[in-house]
């Protein structure tokens, strides 16, 4: 039933997920990579802080949002893993006022 999102390259990459190094096949999405490493949720909601996990895996539902290389609100199901990537959960909603100060 499941096939890889990208053609098999036989390579693997190492990325950081919540500060922990994980090594995965280079042919997957970020969402698949972190789920495969036991993550049960990828983000928390703005209002109630509830945990959410990828639902559609095709870019529609926005329930897979993560912070990737410092950029908030990224759809982890649409991003391919890359060597050295830094990935963390999207906690609530990002604040534009904060990014402006950076």
């Amino acid at each position: 039933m499941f096939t890889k999102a990208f053609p098999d390259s036989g390579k693997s990459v190492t990325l950081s997920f919540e500060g922990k190094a994980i090594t995965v096949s280079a042919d997957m999405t970020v969402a698949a990579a972190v789920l495969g490493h036991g993550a049960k949720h990828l983000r928390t909601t703005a209002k109630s802080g509830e945990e959410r996990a990828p639902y559609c895996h095709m870019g529609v539902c926005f329930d897979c949002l993560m912070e990737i290389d410092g950029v908030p609100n990224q759809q982890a199901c649409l991003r391919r893993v890359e060597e050295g990537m830094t990935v963390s959960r999207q906690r609530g909603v990002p604040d534009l006022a904060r990014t402006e100060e950076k």
Partner: protein
Amino acid sequence: MNDQQNKHDAAEVVVLGGGAVGTAVAYYLARAGRNVALVELGEFPWGSSKRCDGHAVTYDSPPGYFSRLCKAGLDLFPEVAADLDVDFDFEPEGVGLLIDDERDLETARASIEGKRAEGIEVQFWDRAELRRREPGVADDVLACLNFASDAKLNPMRLAFGLARRAGAYGARLMPRTRVTGIETRDGAVAAVLTDRGRIASPVVIDACGVWAPLIGQMVGLTIPIRPRQGQILVSEKLRGLASQSYAEYGYLAAKGGRKRNGVTADMEAYGVALVAEPTEAGTVLFGSSRRYVGLDTSSHPGVLRAMAQRARRFFPRLAEARIIRCYAGLRPATPDGKPIISPTPVPGFFVAAGHEGNGIGLSLITGKLVAELLGGGPTSVDLAPLRLERFLEPPHAA
């Protein structure tokens, strides 16, 4: 014809259209103990009421009859919110009108007294006050008229909740049912024909929004409502863009024909003006546009671009945000911008439609007034300015 109907195929009143207006009418009638049926070709809601913003406001009209009608409509929400078992996120947190033209400062200040006299809460924020409250607003915006009690809500939940509560009060809900004709006897309404059968009834309320004219035609009435399309952009979920709703003052002023600062030819052609609404879910809705393009509800890239440019002019941080969705809806527009809440020359046929850009905010007051109208007593608001006849009898040339 046979009057010995199965009681399920008869009603005292049949409401046509399950948008914000039709569900509100059915709700007030059912609450008053009327035997009412609510017929909608889709779900509750299905038409304009699920393709719009969620403002229930008083800011967009000069002091006068229409402004007071909007205020009366806004005032009904808290009580109805408490009565429904669906939370429709009613938030009377205020809507600000942003002023970016020196020439508007004087007129804006002058309008405050008239609105206050109608019981509407208006505050004047100078530039410093505005920047303090809304740091994301562009530096050269001069001031803001804040309509502190204007509200936002979720229109889909409102219409759904009204239909559901109407059902609990005994209304017969008929989703997925298309009205195909109206039967008359001796010129008066006798029954509603649908693709699911006939409902005998002496009274019909046409609450079909932009489709109200098609229902009117079924009894030979001309109802002058045209669809006025509007588009919306939806941002990703974020904070720091706008902490409450805003619109641009200049657009109201521009109705007098004056050109606004920084408006492009596209913005002019597409009737683009800023409306920003942060939703309960964390997204921000950006509008608005106004075009007559029939029943077309497809998004138009040129309109979207012009709206995004206009929004960035007031909220520069939007450049950092992503847009995740867009949609378009249809405002039911009458020639004078006011709704039609009215009996008609056809006995038993009433119209409750044509609310243009205020059908959400005016939904409850419309329901209440229709219930009063059918009750035969005096209505709590004078309905003379909203009668269909104002369009049927053109005034004589002087």
